[in-house]
């Protein structure tokens, strides 16, 4: 049991006073970020990433830095549930499904038990996902050590195609958003020859578009513009959680163990195959409704209807880190931002990380266990405090969030040009949301575009332009085949449904 030993060592790393302190700081910041409109997991982590630059240069500092950032992520995942249940405003896209039963519960005066159920099932989902990561990631990493450029390209292709095949949005919108991301990723230095392209002679574009700035603009400024349109006031239920409510809910929860287990399975699968937390939460809600004996009462305030999406969202959000750590392929925009952090700190994500940076990897995995326990404690005890944040008038909170976004995008490269780009991306993000184009494929394409291109061209150099290299052995062939199947899945299901309709 190598994993248990490594994990025990990881706990030693993560349990230093400094790391535990940053864990709590990260959780609290994360919940605040998750509660605030316009700030979410992805752009919250992106904004706070520059704060870790000097931290990461100290010995052992990268571990502290990743613990801080990943705990912000857990906090944001927890925080999304608070706004969905109390205010019927999903703070994050993955908590939309939580509003279906969470808000009715709050209206019936059962906000406390809805919140307890949401937090506890989030915790359970995350825990199951971390256990999966603990035992699966060393295997995947060992396997991936043998990967060459064609295999890596097949993994990237699988990621992109999974987005098209499994997204809730129309496949063509996903494709359009992804292609725009590729175009933006192509700007700057050619990853193979080092030549400049698409810079139109401007110096500011030499390094291309930084996806951190894109994330801050698209999700942050775009969200603020959208929130403004929907009105300036939040009206919410009151939140009071006392020990009695918590204990009563905890007694009720084990009844839904099958729902939790199914939700966690859906979540882990959707997180590892980059479907993401949002489709996972919807899918799990749908599955729970079909299998539950109270299925027809869903939507009227069923605790089970809170358990299912929250468990799945957390399981997906957590397990999205597995491909990020083992393959260097992030499963969600937030995982992509964490990956960006690793690169900036000078760590190369991928299978070698498990060989060369054992302290870092296992410290991180151990901190996932501890961080989620810390998160559960913080959210259960401080809900009224966090709910109070949403009562701050929008005319105060909106400019402060814009300022935070501006500071965040400036500090990425210390350049004002990035702040301008943030505004441009903000308008773009607003347009995307209004037209129901998904943002996640755009972000992933900006992040992975260069790397996918590099591995594609290296594979082409090796095979001298022969495309059959992507089917040259069982492994790469299976991945490419699966990717193509996922890509054409929407088309196939459309054809089948048409065929049935006409027959």
């Amino acid at each position, binding site marked *: 049991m190598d994993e248990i030993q490594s994990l025990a060592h990881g706990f030693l790393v993560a349990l230093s006073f400094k790391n535990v302190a940053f864990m709590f700081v990260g959780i609290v910041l994360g919940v605040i970020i998750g509660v605030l409109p316009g700030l979410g997991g992805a752009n919250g982590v992106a904004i706070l990433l520059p704060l870790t630059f*000097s931290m990461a240069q100290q010995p052992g500092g990268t571990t502290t830095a990743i613990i801080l950032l990943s705990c912000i992520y857990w906090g944001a995942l927890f925080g999304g549930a608070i706004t969905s249940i109390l205010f019927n405003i999903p703070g994050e896209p993955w908590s939309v499904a939580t509003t279906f039963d969470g808000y009715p519960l709050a209206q019936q005066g059962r906000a406390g038990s809805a919140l307890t159920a949401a937090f506890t099932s989030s915790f359970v989902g995350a825990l199951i996902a971390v256990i999966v990561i603990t035992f699966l990631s060393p295997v995947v990493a060992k396997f991936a050590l043998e990967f060459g450029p064609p295999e890596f390209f097949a993994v990237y292709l699988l990621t992109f195609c999974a987005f098209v095949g499994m997204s809730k949005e129309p496949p063509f919108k996903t494709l359009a958003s992804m292609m725009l991301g590729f175009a933006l990723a192509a700007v700057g230095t050619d990853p193979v020859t080092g030549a400049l392209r698409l810079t139109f002679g401007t110096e500011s574009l030499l390094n291309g578009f930084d996806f951190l700035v894109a994330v801050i603009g698209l999700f942050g400024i775009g969200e603020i513009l959208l929130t403004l349109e929907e009105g300036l006031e939040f009206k919410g239920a009151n939140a009071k959680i006392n020990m009695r409510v918590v204990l009563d809910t905890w007694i009720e929860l084990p009844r839904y163990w099958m729902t939790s287990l199914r939700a966690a399975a859906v979540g882990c699968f959707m997180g590892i195959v980059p479907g993401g937390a949002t489709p996972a939460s919807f899918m799990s809600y749908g599955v729970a409704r079909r299998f539950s004996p109270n299925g027809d009462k869903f939507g009227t305030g069923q605790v089970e209807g809170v358990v299912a999406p929250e468990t799945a969202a957390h399981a997906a959000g957590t397990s999205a880190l597995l491909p990020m750590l083992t393959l260097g392929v992030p499963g969600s925009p937030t995982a992509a931002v964490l990956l960006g952090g690793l690169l900036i700190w000078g760590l190369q994500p991928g299978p070698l990380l498990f060989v060369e940076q054992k302290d870092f990897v296992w410290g991180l995995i151990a901190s996932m266990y501890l961080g989620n326990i810390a998160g559960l404690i913080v959210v259960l005890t401080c809900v009224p405090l966090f709910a109070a944040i949403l009562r701050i008038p929008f005319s105060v909170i909106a400019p402060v969030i814009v300022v935070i976004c501006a500071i965040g995008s*400036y*500090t990425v490269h210390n350049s004002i040009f990035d702040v301008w780009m943030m505004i441009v991306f903000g308008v773009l993000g607003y347009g995307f949301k209004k037209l129901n184009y998904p943002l996640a494929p755009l972000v992933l394409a900006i992040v992975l575009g260069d790397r996918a291109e590099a591995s594609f061209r290296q594979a082409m150099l090796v095979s001298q332009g022969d495309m059959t290299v992507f089917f040259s052995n069982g492994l790469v062939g299976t991945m490419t085949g699966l990717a193509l199947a996922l890509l054409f899945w929407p088309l196939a299901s459309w054809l089948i449904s048409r065929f049935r309709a006409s027959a």
Partner: protein
Amino acid sequence: MIALVNRKDAERDFVELGKLKLVLAVLVPAVIYVALISWIGIYVASVIFIAFFMRWLGKYAWWKVAVVSVGVMVAFFLIFEVWFLVPLPKGPVENLLGVG
């Protein structure tokens, strides 16, 4: 770029005029704010930006406006420059105060 321009055209059709005004009410000050950053530094620009919003949209009393806008930026100064040692763009006012 063409896609961008087209998108803006399309927006006009699906946003009501009143709502568009609200959106522009944030967007236009935000653009001016970014222009101000390179000129007078991020701290002073942010104080003006937050104060403008609170006074104009929120109709707060002047003293509240002053306390919140300056307080928020002093907090950011302490977090970024003192605690995490991340320098942010500054202007003549910071030089006068001797922290630039």
